[in-house]
């Protein structure tokens, strides 16, 4: 588990596209894993995660690979590939691998950032004329939000035209769809909170250039249910 450092680096190099939005929202920043992240929005962040919250995970490691031989290459690296597209599989090290098509896979860090896989795969990969497997710059192309809470389905129903009812959309199912008219990847991955309870959760990845718009849309959709942004600390506690 990575530890927060209390001073945020001044450089804009390793901070989220949402940095200024979060600053205006009263976020308390800290340094984590070499990046500036929101440690806390409010004292009741933990409670917020239970009812309805969004957490910016954009500074957590992730990577992606695509190509005719991507599944073979990933398997050789010890990745357990989901059985079919639009499913995700939790890896032994805690990372989550989502299959976006037979030839395209997304690797997300665990919330504690203990899994080495996302970064290690990116480091190990290089253009190889004999292997049709190509890295995708997922850390830079996409922003990553985690949405949690018991009111999550009601909130999503205001921005996305997919039925996320429990019977229709199982844990680790993936939807590549339109959220607030933005192409997005949604991955259901229920999370265990500090108090031991499990709460409904979705990873939402969208084009990084639109994440400020997405954040506003989600905040607006959450209002009705008392939803708010939360910091990483409550999630990692």
């Amino acid at each position, binding site marked *: 588990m990575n530890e927060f450092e209390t001073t945020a680096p001044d450089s804009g190099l390793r901070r989220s596209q949402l940095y200024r939005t979060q600053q205006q929202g009263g976020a308390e920043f800290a340094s984590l894993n070499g990046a500036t992240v929101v440690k806390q929005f409010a004292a009741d962040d933990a409670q917020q995660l239970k009812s309805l919250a969004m957490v910016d995970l954009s500074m957590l490691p992730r990577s992606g690979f695509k190509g005719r031989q991507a599944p073979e290459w990933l398997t050789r690296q010890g990745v357990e590939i989901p059985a079919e597209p639009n499913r995700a599989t939790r890896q032994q090290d805690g990372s989550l691998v989502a299959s*976006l098509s037979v030839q395209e896979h997304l690797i997300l860090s665990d919330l504690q950032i203990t899994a080495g896989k996302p970064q290690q795969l990116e480091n190990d990969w290089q253009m190889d004329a004999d292997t049709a497997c190509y890295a995708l710059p997922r850390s830079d192309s996409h922003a990553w939000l985690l949405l949690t809470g018991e009111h999550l389905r009601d909130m999503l129903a205001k921005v996305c035209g997919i039925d996320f009812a429990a019977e229709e959309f199982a844990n680790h199912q993936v939807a*590549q*769809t339109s959220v607030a008219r933005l*192409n997005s990847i949604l991955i259901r991955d229920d999370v265990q909170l500090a108090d031991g309870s499990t709460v409904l959760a979705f990873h939402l990845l969208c084009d990084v250039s639109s994440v400020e718009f997405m954040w506003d849309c989600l905040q607006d959709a959450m209002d009705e249910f008392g939803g708010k942004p939360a910091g990483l600390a409550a999630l990692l506690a």
Partner: protein
Amino acid sequence: MKILNCPLNGPRNISEFIYGGELHEMPDPNRCDSREWVEHVYFHENAAGIVREWWCHSATSYWFLAERNTITDEIIRTFPASEVFNQRVEFTAVEGE
């Protein structure tokens, strides 16, 4: 709003898709006559009945094919483009040109 069944993503609102036009078999551009090529580029069958069309799921940029009845607007089936296109296409110039 109609539902279109994407071979990759399953049934979705048709607003998630982009229509890509009728499926045409491309004549050999280096060997067909001008008339044939012009018809390929500019003419559309616009048939009343069952047609094959290109559709693209925009969130995934995934192209596939659909069979649709243009009279009833019923989508009969959708399938990956690889059902029709599964061989590398080569173009060769005509000798001497």
